[in-house]
């Protein structure tokens, strides 16, 4: 798995411990990148979480390279690559989709379309606003997915992974979602580029609450079980914050290590 700088949830999903993720956000020695990567560069090679990359779209070719290595070694793994819709305007996206299709690489390109690249609405800067359509240019399978429905995302990802694993064909997924918070710490909650009403409206489609609702309707979980889950997650986050707070900074001698490998 490889991702952009908005990779925190994916790192957790890949199994990187919350303590190591939080400590990395704090820049601490116990972080998953030893405090040298920070928020944008979470890495855990053992769990095959390969970053955390800070240049918009710059990691998309890396995903194809990982797919190339899988094919080279005749492995059955699949590389999944997450990026935002703003990365679709970058040349690296197009060069990579072309080559991934030509070389038949086992890669799932998953575009999380949250509608805004920083403060710029996608339709203001993209001639083609349905990201999936770009797959036509590269003769690639594609699927448009409701990103506010976790089960739909799961099913579409599974289909794409199967296609990569069995046929060695890449897929472009466009997962439509939304970002409630600002782009970064310097961006207020909704900024001047969108209205508060729009944000509030989107929150009603929140995938976590929607999934909770479905689970209770289906009788899979009752309210008490959901509350227990919430409490468990909250405790894990509290513990991670405490762990990060208490962790040491990297030793000053670490400044010059890891520039080159031995």
């Amino acid at each position, binding site marked *: 798995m490889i991702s952009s700088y908005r990779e925190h949830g994916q790192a957790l999903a890949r199994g990187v411990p919350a303590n190591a993720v939080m400590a990395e956000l704090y820049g601490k020695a116990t972080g998953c990148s030893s405090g*040298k990567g920070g928020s944008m560069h979470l890495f*855990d090679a053992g769990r095959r979480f390969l970053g955390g990359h800070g240049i918009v779209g710059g990691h998309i070719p890396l995903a194809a390279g990982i797919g190339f290595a899988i094919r080279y070694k005749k492995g059955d793994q699949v590389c999944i690559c997450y990026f935002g819709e703003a990365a679709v305007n970058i040349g690296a996206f197009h*060069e990579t989709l*072309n080559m991934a299709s030509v070389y038949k690489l086992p890669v799932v390109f998953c575009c999380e379309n949250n509608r805004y690249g920083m403060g710029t609405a996608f339709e203001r800067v993209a001639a083609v606003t349905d990201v999936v359509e770009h797959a036509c240019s590269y003769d690639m399978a594609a699927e448009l997915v409701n990103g506010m429905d976790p089960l739909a995302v799961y099913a579409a990802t599974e289909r794409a992974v199967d296609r990569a694993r069995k046929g060695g064909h890449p897929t472009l997924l466009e997962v439509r979602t939304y970002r409630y918070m600002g782009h970064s710490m310097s961006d207020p909650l909704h900024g001047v580029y969108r209205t508060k009403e729009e944000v509030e409206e989107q929150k009603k489609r929140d995938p976590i609450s929607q999934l909770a609702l479905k689970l209770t309707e289906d009788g899979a979980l009752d309210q008490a079980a959901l509350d227990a889950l919430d409490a468990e997650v909250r405790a894990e986050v509290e513990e991670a914050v405490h762990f990060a707070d208490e962790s040491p900074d990297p030793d000053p001698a670490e400044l010059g290590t890891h520039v080159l490998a031995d």
Partner: protein
Amino acid sequence: MPTLTYRDALNQALREEMQRDPNVFLMGEEVGVYQGAYKVSRGLLEEFGPMRVVDTPIAELGFAGIGVGAAMAGLRPVIEFMTWNFAVLALDQIVNSAAKILYESGGQIPIPIVFRGPNGAALQLAAQHSQAWDAWLSHIPGLKVVAPATPADAKGLLKSAIRDANPVIVLEGEMLYNVKGEVPEGEHLVPIGQAEVKRPGGDVTVICHSKTVAVALKAAEQLAEHEGVSAEVLDLRSLRPLDEAAIVGSVARTNRAVVVEEGWPHCGIGAQVVDVIQRDAFDQLDAPVLRVTQADVPMPYNKQLERLAKPSPDRVVAAVRRVLYLD
């Protein structure tokens, strides 16, 4: 010892390393069916097949990134740029991915990759196709940079580069590909980071690398013949890491230095070499260090103007005369 061209020495290094390690593969424009834009990869597709000799579209950023991704996943890619001029399109992957992933992952993910191709001017290819990127690439921590001048060094440095655990930039030269020289057979490795005296001398050190080694050697011949001056020609071979001990050691003996390079003067390799000399050989210097570089202009097309722009033996001789106060 067999005599080979620089081109065939590189070819031999690639072939031997691909035979030695199944994880080594070559990727780039025209490397396969066409046999290489400069025939460096001649015969490799036939021997190793299309999975290991991979033709790409003209998409430097994309295939450089595929190389880095493959290195992240355990392969040892050799990425050929048809020329380093086109590699500028891939700088994001070289600078932001290859050079940084080991550091920003806290040492978890090494990137054993080679980026190679011809660098600098050939003949009358004009401004966009005649640029030396030595200083740009040597600026970046996380990269190693080598620039062989002879067929033997080309083979030995490329083999070392392929075996290195880090991203290594190999700067070749279109004008060097036909140069012939003796090349040791088989296991010939030139360590990265070691300069070599290509001609010993006692009166002045001429520090150079890549194509300018031939320029310096010619100048040294003229100086010996016409001026009775004994010039030591020190070939840097590696630009990062730089063999500072060899530079200081030679200048401490000769007390004078001229630095020659193909790049532009501003913030060039020579500026770095001069910094080493003023810091560690200040008391041994008998004259200010002078530099001979490409003229500080985009490369002109016209043959006469192009000749004026390039470092030449005459310009090196003139600089040596000045540091010896012969003028």
